């Protein structure tokens, strides 16, 4: 069975700084990567391939850097990538992304599963999977913590707020995975080098008949700023006894713990 995995290129969150004066995130020159949970989705697809055969295709929509970023996913064991590249797709709203992905997926050919992350690293909105399922009119299993394909069916356990549900459905289907589904492999350098040679189809939205300018904006972002955070940042680097004693008297002075 062939699988498609939708992966998103995002900035490495650990490397973002906040501009003091405006409290805005500084996004320039932050290294790009594939979202953490997206990697769990790739891992899940590669494991299905390893046990049951078939091919894994990565599909992604984003800026020009995608050709480089996608190598990480290919190195994890995916076979090929279909990339839709346009500067406007970088940080585009979920509706636009889902529309473009649906068109790209239509080009891929036969597949049994479309896997996505439960949420993207930067936006974590969990919209693209459900929107895509609706656009393609496919069944959707979200928040999967385990999946299995047998006899042309998907069996999955989804982790809901108050219960675990074992569900099944026919293929093709859309699945969004939780990070707990697996531990994503870290590819070896040799895999990363080989990944450069795996087939990549790079398309412009126009190649898919998608006119980004004609897609209505649905959600407008008015502001995106870090909340004020003032912390004392007092460090105690002494031996444990001294440090603990100093900490406790500081906490007591603040009224953060009762006096004993």
């Amino acid at each position: 069975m062939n699988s498609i995995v939708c992966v998103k290129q995002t900035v490495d969150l650990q490397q973002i700084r906040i501009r003091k004066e405006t409290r805005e995130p500084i996004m320039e020159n932050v290294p790009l990567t594939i979202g953490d949970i997206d990697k769990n989705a790739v891992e899940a697809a590669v494991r299905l391939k390893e046990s049951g055969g078939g091919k894994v295709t990565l599909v992604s929509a984003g800026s020009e850097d995608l050709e480089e970023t996608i190598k990480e996913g290919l190195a994890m064991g995916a076979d090929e990538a279909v990339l839709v590249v346009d500067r406007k797709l970088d940080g585009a709203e979920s509706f636009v992304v889902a529309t473009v992905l649906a068109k790209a997926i239509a080009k891929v050919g036969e597949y049994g599963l479309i896997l996505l992350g439960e949420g993207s690293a930067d936006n974590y909105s969990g919209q693209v999977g459900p929107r895509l399922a609706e656009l393609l009119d496919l069944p959707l299993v979200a928040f999967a913590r385990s999946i299995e394909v047998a006899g042309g069916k998907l069996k999955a356990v989804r982790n809901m707020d108050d219960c675990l549900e074992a569900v099944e459905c026919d293929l093709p289907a859309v699945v969004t995975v939780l990070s707990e589904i697996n531990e994503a492999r870290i590819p070896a350098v040799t895999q990363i080098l080989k990944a450069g040679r795996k087939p990549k189809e790079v398309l412009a939205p126009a190649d898919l008949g998608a006119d980004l300018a004609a897609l209505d904006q649905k959600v407008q972002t008015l502001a995106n700023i870090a909340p004020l955070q003032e912390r004392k940042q007092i460090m105690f680097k002494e031996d444990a006894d001294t440090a603990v004693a100093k900490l406790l008297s500081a906490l007591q002075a603040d009224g953060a713990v009762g006096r004993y």
Partner: protein
Amino acid sequence: MGQILIFSENDNTGFELVGKGLEIGSATGAAVAAAVFGTDVADRANEYLNRGVKKVYIPGAGKEALETFDAAAYAEALAQITAKAEATLVMMGCTRRGKELAGRLAEKLGAGCVNDVNGVRLEDGRIVYSRYALGGMTVCSQTVVAPVAVVSVMPATFEQAPKVMPGGDCVAVDFSIKPVRVRLVERQAKTTESVDIAEAKTLVCVGMGLGGVEKVALAEELAKALGGEVGGSKPVITDQKWLPEARMIGLSGKKCKPQLTVCLGVSGQVQFMVGIREAKTIVAVNTDENATIFQYADYGIVGDLNEVAPKLAALLK
């Protein structure tokens, strides 16, 4: 603006949305309706009517398709109700099912969607939603410019609407919904925790630095000395299962506002920190003096939690 439709699999969250919906409605003139699916619909519908909702939609013919949760079927039913109610704002509870449903419903309605909303305000005649972005590092303000908005709101964001004199009606809607494609095989309820760490005044948070499940006792000891509860980072809970899920702190877990929180062996990544950002005082214990958490702490001890935690607990006694 058209009317407001409320839907949540969890009624308590639904009542919170009713509270906010009525508030928006009184400013904009929108009427508030609700939809109730699943079991005991009649009784539950009454609960909504008791809280000031004017119309509650329940499934009539075709309700079998809504007995178990299939996002496609639920989206179809809600799309039909949205049209009937002439709603331009659908407010849902941001439970996992709610979140799965929101995107699918929005796509069906050609709507704009905002998930994980933790604030709603009226500003210059438009409704502005706030939610976390960049893993919780920033707070993003968004407004929906499409004709219809589907938003899912985090549980416990608003006060529940108080009970008033009921004065609305319950309407059964007949559906023609495509057969359910996601079949439920088995449901296993989660053991519910009796404590809600979001309410704790003092919190001891453990991270991967704890090293093993046998060390949880160490954190419990300290929590006891401080009169607080124990919570954990995501890997401690979803990967290692050292603590139950209800004790997870952060973007995908609980957002807590304790007076004091002591973090043991937590590195301080943004998805964790958003869960304790509103703590009054943050203490961090970490062996790595360059750990990010020290930038977000009021007090930091560079040291081994195995040594520091028991000493602190002993001093408190």
